[in-house]
């Protein structure tokens, strides 16, 4: 038996449900099914799906009585949290997570909402908006057939093996989707993590970017450079940078390439029957009629109905020329050459070819407008060669410089501190390395998660109460376990911190924040 049966058997109490529906659709009795654009798990009986959608729709309508400008954000029930996100006008995404003790299911609603926002942003980047798809195909088949594999592939990233897996990879039975919990309170989804570079390296990077721009000639070309999983430079708008960065970290960086491969190997251990990229797809083996039109395992270059799955795992590989290649986008029928991926830029609403080149730890992504490349794939590969020729030397140099200055995965560890620093204006964050965060006790993490929830609500209130007026807040809590849990919000920047082995006095804690702020935040959180 393959994975499918094993996971279906354990799939009974589902930890998470996710649905997307269109409020405009299915207005008449008997047409409710038409509302649903996506539902996970897909094998949930329709009656249960309808009840989720019915409640969501009902509460959206209900809350608009009092809050016409902002309908339902979340429902907290004893056993579940429902998180709402109106991704596009009338297109709602709702995630329902179960509060089970087993998985320490305590989370921030905002962290969950960011998951919804991220998957939607990525979807739009590759496929355009859901509304546009529905306009193109009012029947909804197009939208559904794209949403289903896309979100399933995305959710694969949250698929955690059972806790026993740490010691024994064979326990795949207790598989569940684990959404961000309180343990992730020192992370911020939807932000970019930057590499700090020295002055010299920065100059090298600058010149590399300039060369990139110039070699594209008159083409309005954009570039994004990553070192490991950290951003070095971007010429894209902040929104587009966040999206492309997220995609790169998920699928393109050296770590993503290798982890895709390695997770492949242990996920497939002993099973050869089911080779869909993510076992989550096989998990929901029973795909209802509305998804039947989809060919999830169809080989590349199948036919016009082929659905592109940009998040499909293990589909990217590095070629000899250093360019990253994938057959996700199919191939040109005439030549058999893999088609170059394309993305939509949010800012310019332009369709761009996405080319990625990798040299050791350095990933270079450049985007060329589809409209400016005349003869298809051939044209793209010409541009690629041109770029490679003109930047390869610089690339080596930059990689060398960055590698030399790179402090390893604990580069941004600050001894004694566990922190998260978010610059909301620039969508940038920096945090203690995960390996250091796990040393914190559950109590400290819970306390910080709760504090962040408070700050989230203060921020959103400030946003409703006085647009443009930014929240200023400083909170230091000494928790029951004697850890200091700290939040600072000032001028669009946020700092969260846990100090576990700190002195009992408030002044000591404040002093520690002050030192950190002066040293690592150029005094952004300092009081003087």
């Amino acid at each position, binding site marked *: 038996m393959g994975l499918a049966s094993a996971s279906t058997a354990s799939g009974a109490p589902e930890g998470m449900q996710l649905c997307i529906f269109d409020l405009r659709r299915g207005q008449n009795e008997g047409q409710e099914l038409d509302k649903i654009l996506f539902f996970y798990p897909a094998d949930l009986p329709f009656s249960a799906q309808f009840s989720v959608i019915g409640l969501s729709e009902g509460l959206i*309508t209900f809350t608009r009585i009092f809050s016409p400008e902002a309908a339902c954000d979340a429902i907290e029930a004893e056993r579940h949290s429902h998180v709402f996100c109106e991704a596009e006008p009338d297109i709602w995404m709702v995630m329902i997570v179960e509060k089970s003790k087993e998985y320490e299911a305590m989370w921030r609603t905002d962290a969950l909402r960011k998951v919804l926002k991220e998957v939607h942003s990525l979807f739009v980047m590759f496929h355009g908006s859901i509304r546009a798809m529905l306009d193109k195909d009012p029947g909804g088949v197009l939208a559904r057939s794209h949403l289903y594999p896309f979100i399933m592939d995305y959710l694969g990233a949250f698929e955690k093996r059972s806790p026993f897996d740490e010691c024994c990879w064979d326990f795949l039975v207790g598989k569940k989707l684990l959404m961000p919990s309180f343990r992730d309170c020192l992370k911020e989804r939807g932000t970019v993590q930057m590499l700090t570079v020295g002055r010299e390296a920065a100059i090298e990077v600058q010149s590399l970017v300039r060369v990139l721009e110039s070699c594209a000639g008159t083409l309005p070309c954009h570039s994004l450079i990553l070192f490991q999983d950290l951003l070095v430079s971007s010429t894209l708008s902040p929104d587009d940078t966040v999206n492309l960065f997220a995609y790169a970290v998920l699928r393109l960086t050296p770590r993503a390439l290798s982890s895709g491969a390695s997770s492949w190997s242990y996920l497939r251990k002993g099973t050869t029957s089911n080779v869909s990229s993510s076992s989550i797809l096989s998990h929901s083996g029973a795909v209802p009629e509305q998804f039947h039109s989809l060919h999830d395992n169809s080989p590349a270059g199948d036919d016009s109905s082929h659905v592109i799955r940009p998040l499909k795992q293990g589909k990217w590989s590095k070629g000899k020329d250093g360019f990253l290649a994938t057959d996700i986008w199919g191939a040109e029928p005439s030549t058999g050459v893999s088609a170059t991926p394309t993305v939509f830029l949010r800012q310019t609403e332009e369709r761009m070819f996405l080319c990625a080149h990798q040299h050791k730890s350095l990933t270079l992504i450049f985007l060329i407008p589809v409209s400016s490349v005349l003869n298809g794939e051939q044209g793209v590969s010409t541009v690629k060669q041109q770029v490679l020729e003109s930047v390869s030397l610089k690339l080596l140099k930059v990689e060398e410089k960055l590698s030399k200055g790179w402090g390893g995965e604990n580069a941004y560890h600050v001894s004694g501190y566990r922190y998260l620093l978010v610059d909301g204006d620039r969508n940038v964050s920096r945090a203690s390395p995960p390996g250091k965060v796990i040393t914190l006790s559950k109590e400290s993490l819970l306390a910080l998660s709760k504090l962040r929830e408070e700050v989230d609500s203060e921020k959103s209130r400030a946003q409703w109460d006085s647009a443009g007026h930014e929240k200023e807040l400083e909170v230091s809590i000494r928790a029951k376990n004697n850890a200091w849990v700290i939040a600072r919000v000032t001028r669009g920047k946020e700092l969260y911190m846990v100090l576990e082995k700190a002195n009992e006095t408030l002044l000591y804690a404040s002093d520690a924040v002050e030192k950190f702020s002066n040293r690592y935040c150029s005094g952004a959180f300092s009081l003087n």
Partner: protein
Amino acid sequence: MTSETSPSVSGDEASDPKPSPEDQLASLALSETDGPASGSPRENNRHNEIESAEEEVQTNSAAPGLAVVENSGEAVRRGRIGGVLWARTNSEPEADGPESPSSSGYAGERGSSSASSAGSGIYEIAEVRDDEVVDGVSDSQAAWVPGKRHVDEDDASISWRKRKKHYFILSNSGKPIYSRHGDEHKLAGFSATLQAIISFVENGGDRVKLVRAGKHQVVFLVKGPIYLVCISCTEEPYESLRMQLELIYGQMLLILTKSVNRCFEKNPKFDMTPLLGGTDVVFSSLIHSFSWNPATFLHAYTCLPLAYATRQAAGAILQDVADSGVLFAILMCKHKVISLVGAQKASLHPDDILLLSNFVMASESFRTSESFSPICLPRYNPMAFLYAYVHYFDIDTYLMLLTTSSEAFYHLKDCRIRIEMVLLKSSVLSEIQRSMLDGGMRVEELPLDPLPRSGSFSPHLGQHTLPTDSPDGFRELYGGIGGPAGLWHFIYRSIFLDQYVSSEFSAPISSPRQQKRLYRAYQKLYASMHERGIGPHKTQFRRDENYVLLCWVTQDFELYAAFDPLADKALAIKTCNRVCQWVKDVENEIFLLGASPFSW
């Protein structure tokens, strides 16, 4: 048939062979009433259904005459408590002579409440004022007018939808029982919607606690057949709003006891509104206290500051009385306790004190003559009625004697006379008046240095802590900027005593609006410190654009202090320590010690 559908959605599940969530939540289309997007025929159809349902409900309730309703309500109450009561109707035949107790507060209000819904002139004025002030702009305790507002509104009114805080009580069949704003009967459709949400989630094997939408929170509390809902766009945390619903439920139990549940067991469509007729003022004053009375979130009571000997004298006579078969004897001045005494092993929960004093103070009729009224203390015994003898000694000071016997009126009256004599003789009553005038602890008077303690904090109690004998001059020293180190206000809660002391409001927390804002900030701080599952935290420092707040929770006490937002941290901490020392130095006067009925 149609008339029944909307108000009791759960009811038609049985009749409907294939209930779909759409049907169950059909009434949620309420907002379409005047929404611009009510285009589709289906929406209009839903809307019509609701409207017709509302009409039905109104005629239903109009059908039995007022008298009938009252009588049936009376019957229910009496049936349950199994005894003839003094109170509850104005036409009590037992009433003999001027000496007899009047009816209890809410029974007396009953007639006037129906009059007020017709819209008397006074009421309209109150409404206008409320529009301007209560919902956040500049309401004050002084400006607050008890009773029900906006009776002309319903969920179709824009003004109603924009109210900052709604509270609803409804039955599990969706029948409205109480609404803070608007006429319950007109809100039948809305009430059915709330019921539909609760039962829809319940049918899915879950229980809805909270819905968030922008600034709004909808908080649900299910208590057997009684549903309570709060819809608020204030910044109060969920935990605080839920506690407020608990208190509202407690207030309802205080009036009816939990045995009202049996009425719903017998008849799920039981209409409870007549039982609560005239109690609008009680609920509205409780709700008002959610914006000024720290007892509502601290779960502690506060005492009127008095010299130790004075309070002792009051306690001694109350104790005397308690030994003669009185369950609880409580002497209060407004919401502050002067002294309280309980029979052996009986202990009084601070929430019960809050609800009882609210009930008494809100009901105008208690003020006019001595009264004997059945009440229930929900934390003491939610199933049973006690009997409260209430007498006002002056405009603010009142005595409550609680007993289990419905026959005890004359005995309690004798007790009261004895108490009154002693209080007058020992000039306790005049001391109370003086304390009222002088007020409590003031941040400006916080002792500056650890001089030998005098054991007294305020000039009117004799010794003064200040070297100078002119407190007014001293206050000027700070020029209306509060106490030392920018201390603006504090609340100290003694955990063992279940009591708190709150400093007097002084500049710059002088306007009611600022006071309410500070109150809300404390409330938030309390919720944050007592976060469920991980709390209580030990210390919290919080600085925003309005305040520096410091909170300190130990095994013995909790201190909440508000400072100028620019206050220096180190100085603020020092000042907090001094506040704690100060409170300990004067605890004899600000707290009720020893003589209380708590069993520790």
